[in-house]
C-alpha cells in the first residue's frame, strides 16, 4: 500500500493492452526505491504539512466565499423542471429559485455531455478543449475513435518464449485539452474534490482529489459490455453484450465468465473464471472466485470481486453484479459489465491514485465504468425496466454517499459531483411520459428524488457557501433517426463502390475518391478535405462554397409527413475559434425535437433510407439543436446575467476565490 501511495503510476506499468490491464508491482529495485522513498516521505512530512498550511492560508486571502458546491444533474430539463416546480413537486429547487436564482443555462454546440462538461471544467469552447463529440475519426482510415481518451500499447515488450512482458509504461492519454478550473485553484492551495465529472479519465494530476467518470472503460477495455448466461439454446446476437451458455449440472448450473485478454501471452487468449449456481433449499447460491453469495430471483447481488489470473501470475481485478432474470423452466443470469475494481484498479481512475480505494474502503464498492447504468441491457431486453431502474438507483445511492461524505469533510474549497441518473432515466423512459402504462411516473419520480438531493446539499450551505445546481443540457423525445450519410449519397456528396446504395458500418464500401462529405458521431459531419483526410478530394478553395450548398440543401430535408427533421445546420467555424478547430466536424446538425442522427449513421453506415423509426427503449435524447435543449442553473445567490452559459461556471469559481481569470478562458464570471 505504501508503494502505491508513493508511486501513483506504478500500477500502470504492466497495463499492456486496451482490453486487459493488470496491476503489476514489480521488481526488487522497485522495492528498494520504495523503501527509501517511504523513509524520505516520513521524515519530510512535518515540513510538507507546514508548507501546505501556509499556502492554503495565502490561497484564500482574496476569497469571497469559503466553499463552492457544484451539484451536477446530467440532462435535467428546464421545461420539465419548471412544470414540476409550478406543480409544487420540487420544493427544494423552488426554494433555491425563490431565495437565490434559477436560470436556463446555455449549453454547447453540440449539446452532448462530454462536450458540455468539458466546457464546464475549462471555461472554454470545444475549439479550445478539443472535445466535439463522443467520437472523432481517424484522418487516415476514417474509423471512429473515442474522442476523450486513448489507451495505447507499451513501446517495449520483452519476449520470453510465449510470454510478452512489458518493460515500458502503457500510455493512457486524456485528449481533453486546456485546463480545468480545479487545477488552477489547486495551484493556489484551494482544495477541490471532483467526483464523477465527465471527461476526467485518465485523471490529471493536480492539488486535490478526483474520481474519473464518463469514458472510463470496463476491464475488457470497452465502454461497458454486459454478459448473459442462459440455458436457452436459441441463438441471440447482442450489439453491445454477449450471451454465454449455462450448463445444467447435478444440483444447479455452471458457466464461465469471459474476462479480458491475457496480454502477457502470445495470441492474447481470453481469461476466464468458472462459476456455479447451486440450488439450496429452494433458493440459489452463486459460487464464483472462491466466494459464495445468495442469488435471489429479481435481486442484484452485491459487487463480486473477480480476479483474472494471467500467465505471469498477476491478476486483473474487476467486479460485477449478478441478477437471475428467470429461474424456471429456463435459467438466465445477467452480469453487469466488468467494472474496474476501485480497490485495485487496472487503470488509473482517481487522483491521487489511492483515492478510489479510500472511497471503496470507506463507503463500499461502487460502479467505476464511465456510463455505469447499463442502457444496452435494457435496449436488448436482457433486463427489464424494473431491473434497470434498480440498477440506476443503486448507482445513485453509491454516488450520493460519496457526495455527502465530501460535503461533510469539506470546510472550505470546492466539491463538485455529477449524477447521471437524470440522463439515463430520461433516455430510457421518455416514451413512457404521458402514458398510463408501467413506469409512466419514472421520470417524474426521478426529478423528485433529485430535488431531495438538492435539499440535502442545501443543508451544507451558509453565508460563505456558493451552491450551484446545474445540468449540461435538457431533454426531448427521440422518435425518428436521420442517416445523414444516406442523405449525402442521395444528393451526390457520398458515393459507394460499384454503384451500391448501402454500406456496412464504418464506411465499408464507400468510394472515397468521389466522396465529398461523410457523417460520423452524434453531432455533425465532415467534408472529405484534401490535405486533411488521407483520401480527401475537396479542395480548400472550394470548401466554403460547398459548405453553403450543403447547408442550404440539408435544411430543406422533409420527413414523410412533411415535417422538417432539421431546423438548422451550423458551419462549425462560425460557432467558435480555437487551436483545435481543425479536429471539429465541419457541420453541426441542429435537429428538431423528435429527431436525432440514426443509430447506425453515427458509426458511419450508409443506410438504404434516410429517416427511420427509433424503436429502442432509448427514446429520449438531447442530440438536437442546442438552442432547444438548454440546461438548468440554480444558485443560492442572485444571478443577474441574462443569458448564462455553461462556460461561465469555471471563471465564476475562480473569481469567487479571488483568483485571476486567465485571458484564454471564454466564459464570463457571473459576479
Amino acid at each position, binding site marked *: 500500500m505504501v508503494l502505491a501511495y508513493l508511486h501513483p503510476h506504478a500500477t500502470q506499468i504492466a497495463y499492456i493492452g*486496451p*482490453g486487459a490491464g493488470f496491476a503489476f508491482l514489480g521488481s526488487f529495485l522497485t522495492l528498494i526505491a520504495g523503501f527509501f522513498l517511504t523513509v524520505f516521505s516520513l521524515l519530510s512530512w512535518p515540513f510538507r504539512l507546514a508548507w501546505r498550511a501556509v499556502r492554503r492560508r495565502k490561497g484564500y486571502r482574496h476569497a469571497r466565499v469559503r466553499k463552492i458546491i457544484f451539484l451536477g444533474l446530467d440532462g435535467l430539463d428546464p421545461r420539465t423542471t419548471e412544470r414540476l416546480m409550478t406543480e409544487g413537486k420540487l420544493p427544494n429547487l423552488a426554494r433555491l429559485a425563490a431565495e437565490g436564482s434559477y436560470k436556463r443555462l446555455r449549453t454547447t454546440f453540440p449539446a452532448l455531455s462530454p462536450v458540455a462538461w468539458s466546457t464546464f471544467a*475549462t471555461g*472554454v469552447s470545444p*475549439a*479550445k478543449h478539443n472535445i466535439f463529440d*463522443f*467520437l472523432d475519426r*481517424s*484522418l*487516415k*482510415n476514417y*474509423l*471512429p*475513435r*473515442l474522442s476523450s481518451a486513448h*489507451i495505447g500499447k507499451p513501446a517495449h515488450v520483452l519476449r520470453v518464449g510465449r510470454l510478452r512482458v512489458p518493460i515500458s509504461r502503457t500510455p493512457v492519454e486524456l485528449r481533453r*485539452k*486546456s*485546463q480545468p478550473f480545479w487545477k488552477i485553484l489547486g495551484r493556489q492551495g484551494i482544495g477541490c474534490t471532483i467526483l464523477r465529472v465527465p471527461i476526467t479519465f485518465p485523471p490529471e494530476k493536480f492539488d486535490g482529489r478526483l474520481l474519473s467518470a464518463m469514458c472510463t*472503460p*470496463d476491464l475488457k*477495455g*470497452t*465502454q*461497458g*459490455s*454486459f454478459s448473459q448466461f442462459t440455458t436457452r439454446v436459441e441463438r441471440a446476437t447482442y*450489439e*453491445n*453484450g454477449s450471451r454465454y451458455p449455462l450448463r445444467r449440472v447435478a444440483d444447479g448450473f455452471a458457466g464461465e465468465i469471459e474476462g479480458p485478454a491475457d496480454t502477457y501471452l502470445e495470441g492474447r487468449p481470453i481469461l476466464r473464471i468458472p462459476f456455479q449456481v447451486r440450488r439450496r433449499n429452494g433458493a440459489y447460491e452463486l459460487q464464483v472466485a472462491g466466494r459464495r453469495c445468495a442469488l435471489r430471483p429479481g435481486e442484484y447481488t452485491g459487487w463480486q470481486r473477480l480476479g483474472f489470473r494471467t500467465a505471469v501470475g498477476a491478476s486483473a481485478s474487476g467486479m460485477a453484479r449478478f441478477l437471475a432474470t428467470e429461474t424456471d423452466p429456463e435459467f438466465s443470469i445477467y452480469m453487469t*459489465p466488468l467494472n474496474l475494481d476501485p480497490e485495485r484498479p487496472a487503470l488509473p481512475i482517481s487522483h491521487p491514485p489511492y483515492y478510489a480505494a479510500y472511497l471503496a474502503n470507506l463507503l463500499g464498492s461502487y460502479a467505476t465504468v464511465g*456510463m455505469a447504468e447499463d*442502457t*444496452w441491457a435494457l435496449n436488448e431486453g436482457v433486463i427489464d425496466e424494473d431491473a434497470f431502474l434498480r440498477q440506476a438507483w443503486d448507482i445513485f445511492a453509491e454516488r450520493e454517499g460519496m457526495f455527502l461524505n465530501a460535503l461533510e469533510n469539506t470546510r472550505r474549497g470546492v466539491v463538485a459531483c455529477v449524477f447521471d441518473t437524470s440522463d*439515463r432515466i430520461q*433516455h430510457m423512459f421518455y416514451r413512457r411520459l404521458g402514458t398510463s402504462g408501467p413506469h409512466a411516473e419514472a421520470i417524474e419520480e426521478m426529478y423528485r428524488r433529485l430535488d431531495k438531493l438538492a435539499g440535502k446539499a442545501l443543508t451544507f450551505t451558509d453565508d460563505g457557501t456558493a451552491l450551484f445546481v446545474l445540468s449540461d443540457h435538457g431533454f426531448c423525445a427521440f422518435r425518428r433517426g436521420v442517416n445523414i450519410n444516406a442523405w449525402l449519397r442521395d444528393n451526390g456528396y457520398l458515393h459507394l463502390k460499384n454503384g451500391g446504395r448501402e454500406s456496412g458500418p*464504418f464506411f465499408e464500401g464507400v468510394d472515397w475518391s468521389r466522396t465529398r462529405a461523410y457523417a460520423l458521431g*452524434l453531432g455533425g459531419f465532415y467534408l472529405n478535405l484534401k490535405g486533411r483526410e488521407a483520401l480527401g478530394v475537396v479542395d480548400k478553395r472550394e470548401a466554403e462554397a460547398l459548405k453553403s450548398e450543403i447547408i442550404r440543401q440539408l435544411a430543406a430535408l422533409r420527413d414523410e409527413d412533411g415535417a422538417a427533421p432539421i431546423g438548422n445546420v451550423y458551419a462549425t467555424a462560425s460557432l467558435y*475559434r*480555437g*487551436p*483545435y478547430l481543425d479536429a471539429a466536424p465541419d457541420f453541426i446538425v441542429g435537429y428538431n425535437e423528435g429527431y436525432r442522427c440514426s*443509430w*447506425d449513421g*453515427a*458509426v458511419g453506415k450508409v443506410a438504404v433510407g434516410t429517416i427511420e423509426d427509433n424503436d429502442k427503449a*432509448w427514446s429520449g435524447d438531447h*442530440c438536437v439543436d442546442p438552442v432547444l435543449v438548454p440546461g438548468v442553473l440554480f444558485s443560492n445567490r442572485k444571478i443577474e446575467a441574462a443569458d448564462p452559459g455553461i462556460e461561465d461556471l469555471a471563471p465564476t469559481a475562480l473569481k469567487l476565490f479571488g483568483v485571476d481569470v*486567465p*485571458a*484564454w478562458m471564454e466564459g464570463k464570471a457571473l459576479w
Partner: protein
Amino acid sequence: MTIKLKKELWAQVTKAATAGGYSSPEEFIEHVLERECAKLAGEEPDEEVVRRLKGLGYID
C-alpha cells in the same frame, strides 16, 4: 522529461500560445508535436478500435 529551448524561442512560443488561445505554452508545444507525430504514427488494427466503442449508449 525536459527539453531546453532558447530564451528567444520560448518568448515566441509564449506569444504564439497566447495568440492561439492555448492555456499555456506547454499545451501549444504539445499540440504542435502531437500533430507532427500523428503524421508518422501507424494505425491500430480496425477491430481493436471498434471493439473499444462497444457499450457506448448512444451508438449501435
